[in-house]
């Protein structure tokens, strides 16, 4: 302890009191939360506004088209002159085809990449591969789109001669590649977060590296991995450019992957870039389709947060 009498300056406590920082601090502490609240409020209001518009226009659509024929209808013929039909199921089926293929492609590859990066890669390898993955994630989807149309489809046609120019397979695969970085990167984060002590515990028992990865790290990171898969699925559902370019525009209610399809997003693009008159059922239909899409992705996000809680392995 320094003896206060031997110092020439005042004590620190006195200096603090003299500096009189308190008043200014109090004002800042009062103002900052208000400003932050207003800024946060803007984004909340925007979301509310968008959802409100969506609901409002969707309700208008259902005044013109019965809701049951929309939900359960298996024919989507909005441009028919004689008898337009607005059954959403073909568009949902088109979306699900793409999503299914994408997930089947992306989950194994993304997980393998994540396991490699978190368990096997040297620091140097990781330093190179992670940025490459991030570049892959940053490629504009329109580029993926014409890559699907002009490269993947012709290559696939040499294997499957029956494959049409517009089909579900090619854009599905390419959407899969588009979401690989998301699964790989988020899963890798989850796996890297597993404490090393756990790996050591298993290794010390004679487990091999692969056993450690599969039976310790993977289960411990499961909630993060599943959440990444669900979020990536959500992106696949909402993906637009790739399917618009390479999927075609034939809404079909079947299980064929080789022919032209139409997804919900592609339909919205088709109408938005066309010249549907304001107030027509076609015009309002894009809101109804958009709202359906919104429900799907909302469900996915809900699922993701449920999974994160449900599969949380506490450590």
């Amino acid at each position, binding site marked *: 302890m320094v003896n206060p009498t031997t110092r020439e300056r005042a004590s620190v406590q006195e200096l603090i009191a003299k500096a009189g920082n308190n008043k200014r601090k109090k004002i800042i502490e009062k103002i900052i939360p208000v400003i932050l609240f207003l800024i946060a409020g803007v984004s909340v209001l925007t979301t509310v506004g968008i959802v409100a518009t969506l609901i409002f226009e969707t309700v208008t659509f259902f005044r013109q088209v019965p809701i049951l024929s929309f939900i359960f209808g298996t024919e989507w013929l909005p441009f028919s002159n004689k008898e337009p039909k607005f059954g959403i199921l073909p568009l949902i089926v088109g979306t699900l085809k793409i999503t299914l293929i994408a997930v089947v492609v992306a989950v194994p590859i993304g997980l393998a990449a994540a396991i490699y990066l978190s368990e096997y890669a040297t620091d140097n390898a990781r330093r190179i591969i992670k940025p490459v993955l991030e570049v892959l994630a940053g490629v504009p989807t329109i580029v993926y789109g014409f890559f699907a149309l002009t490269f993947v489809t012709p290559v696939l046609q040499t294997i499957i001669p029956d494959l049409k120019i517009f089909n579900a397979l090619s854009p599905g695969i390419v959407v899969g590649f588009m979401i690989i970085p998301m699964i790989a990167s988020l899963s890798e984060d989850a796996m890297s977060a597993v404490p090393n002590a756990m790996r*050591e515990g298993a290794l*010390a*028992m004679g487990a091999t590296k692969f056993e450690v990865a599969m039976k310790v790290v993977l289960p411990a990171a499961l909630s993060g991995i599943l959440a990444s898969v669900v979020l990536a699925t959500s992106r696949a559902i909402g993906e637009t450019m790739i399917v618009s370019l390479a999927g075609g525009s034939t809404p079909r209610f079947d299980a064929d992957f080789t022919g032209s399809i139409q997804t919900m997003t592609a339909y919205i693009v088709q109408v938005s870039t066309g010249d549907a008159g304001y107030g027509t059922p076609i015009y309002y239909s894009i809101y109804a389709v958009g709202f359906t899409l919104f429900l799907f992705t909302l469900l996915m996000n809900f699922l993701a947060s449920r999974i994160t809680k449900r599969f949380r392995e506490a450590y």
Partner: protein
Amino acid sequence: MVQLMNRTDKETQAAVSPVEAPIRETAKPVVYDTKQLNLWYGSHHALKNIDLPIRENEVTAIIGPSGCGKSTYIKTLNRMVELVDGVRTSGEILYRGRNIFDAKYSVEELRTRVGMVFQKPNPFPKSIYDNIAYGPRIHGIKNKKILDEIVEQSLRGAAIWDEVKDRLSTNAYSLSGGQQQRICIARALAIEPDVILMDEPTSALDPISTLKVEELVQELKENYSIIIVTHNMQQAARISDKTAFFLNGEVIEFDDTNKIFQNPADQRTEDYISGRFG
């Protein structure tokens, strides 16, 4: 080759035992024989010319000030130290007569025979049951009845069966630190290893849990050879048969625990155990 080594080893022992004055006449067979071991972390020379014969069914305590290489040594015995980048070793460690650094000796095989308990309890984020069954399972035991048996036996062996028998399916992380540590000991017992390495297993535990683990170590030495790192002099004196005193990466003294604590040969050992430095 291996057989030959085994035989020579026994012969050497028979010949050497009477000469090793401080060791009791009934010297037990050597499990781990460290010969001229050196270890470097990059350019840092962490272990220097270690010679240490560790015997069967004994508790060998390793003591010494922080940073002297105790953990490094114990992690070298099951080659976990090689997980650190840039580690180099020279010399040899014979485990049951075989050099563990031999290219043909798989680390998995070694670690299946030599269990380890870490300083901080590190159970897997799984149920208590799955934690214990983990080792047997990865080594191919699938039969549910046998696994049940192993789990109970290991938990009993680690003196925690009564505390957890009604909640084997709860997550091991719902247990207290002391219980978790005993789960980790049970997990190590589950593959019925030959040797158990313990790196300050009680440093994160309260006195009562510590006592339980110490009693446990006493019981376990009936069937296992135990090497335990500890900062607690009383603990080393209470539970070990032999004590090795490490300083700056060297073994200063290795002898019967009684001898080390009552009549150490080296001044530095005496200074350390009487708390004059370290």
